[in-house]
């Protein structure tokens, strides 16, 4: 099975993709939950605008998102230069930038899923928790959060899968540097751009599918366990 013998560079791309996808998913999770809460429960002016902004990465061609990221978070970008100078965080042409791009691209998917779950929660249970002495934060942690878990899981898996498949914004923002920003998807893309690259593209595609299937299966199993726990009512 020569097809599946992977080169060292390819292994690097796989490891990198995993790292990027996992970091992108986990790092965006708190923001995703916060925004989903804000959009589901908040009643403030500009809610629609915020909702629109969250959806932008979905609406725009990935290349455009990539350019916007480059302009904002690049070395010379408004936010990028601030992060670099004040916090020492450099995103441009780093794997962290790839993670940012993936996170941004998956963000609308994550927020929507979580928001849907929040909206399905019976507010009466939160009331009941309050009467038992739980402060709003505690109610959130012990009632709201566990009950929105199905949405959180769905959102995470969508974001992870998106991160595994995303390359348009990534390659535009942080380029396609092996070992640093060349994710699995970017590697696949590169293969599709050269003569005779099909076999390579196929091989890496199978790897991408295998990884994501494992993630999917794990998430389904997790969701089942949670579902079984809640079950009935």
């Amino acid at each position: 099975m020569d097809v599946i013998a992977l080169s060292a560079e390819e292994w690097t791309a796989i490891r990198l993709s995993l790292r990027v996808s996992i970091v992108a998913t986990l790092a965006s999770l708190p923001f995703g939950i916060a925004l989903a809460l804000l959009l589901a429960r908040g009643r403030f002016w500009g809610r629609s605008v915020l909702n629109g902004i969250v959806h932008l990465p979905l609406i725009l061609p990935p290349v455009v998102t990539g350019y916007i990221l480059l302009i904002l978070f690049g070395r010379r970008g408004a936010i990028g230069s601030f992060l670099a100078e004040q916090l020492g965080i450099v995103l441009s042409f780093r794997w962290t930038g790839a993670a940012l791009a993936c996170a941004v691209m998956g963000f609308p998917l994550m927020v929507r899923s979580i928001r849907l779950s929040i909206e399905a929660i019976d507010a009466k249970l939160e009331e009941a928790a309050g009467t038992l002495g739980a402060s709003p934060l505690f109610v959130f942690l012990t009632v709201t959060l566990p009950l929105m878990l199905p949405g959180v899981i769905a959102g995470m898996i969508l974001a992870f899968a998106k991160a595994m498949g995303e390359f348009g914004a990534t390659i535009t923002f942080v380029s396609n540097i092996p070992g640093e920003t060349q994710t699995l998807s970017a590697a696949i893309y590169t293969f599709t751009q050269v003569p005779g690259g099909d076999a390579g593209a196929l091989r890496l595609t199978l790897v991408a599918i295998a990884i994501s299937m494992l993630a999917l299966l794990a998430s389904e199993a997790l969701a089942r366990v949670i579902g079984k726990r809640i079950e009935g009512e």
Partner: protein
Amino acid sequence: VLPQRSDAADKIVVFAAASMKNALDAANAAYLKETGTEVTSSYAASSALAKQVESGAPADVFISADLDWMDYLAKKNLIKADSRSNLLGNRIVLVAAKDKAKPVEIKAGFDLAGLLGDGRLAMGSVDSVPAGKYGKAALEKLGAWSSVEKKVAGAESVRAALALVSRGEAPYGIVYETDAAAEPGVSVVGVFPADSHPPIIYPVAVLADSKNPAASAYLQFLKSEKAAPFFTSQGFTILK
């Protein structure tokens, strides 16, 4: 392993048009063997690479798939003007699916529209993909453009255009000779005369921000006899 701004010396970072991957990977391997200097290449669309250079990418060398994006950087003084040269050339050819291939004489006034019938002409997107721009120029020059314009299927890349032809979606396609040579599903049925379109040129330059002293040596290597076979074997022509 983090590519620092390349004043960290020994490692060279090349931003190159995606279509050069096969040739450049081979050349880089040879360069490493010869000099012990590692070259990392980032392959993407010339447009993206140019914009990245503009926003401070840590690259030393840029190889564009057309002159436009090199000019774009030159205008902004982002390349070392004296290092710029035209590295490679290419040709565009007319291809057809292997089983349907009959030679076509490509000359002024040739009846491409008739050949296509109600089929499509696959080529790189004529506004955005360099091969598409060259193809359009050639067809205009040969007087065929107005009759086929409506039949053009602009693909996202030359490879995608090739796939359209080899899959039988489109009876004919205009692609680089380099790509056509490597695709077993298609045959070259005609070559566009060199004078029918602006010269197809892959320019190369060291970037203005590069502090890597090895960059110019690497450029010399690319232009040398030692590197030539890697390019010619992929179908590129060496420009002197």
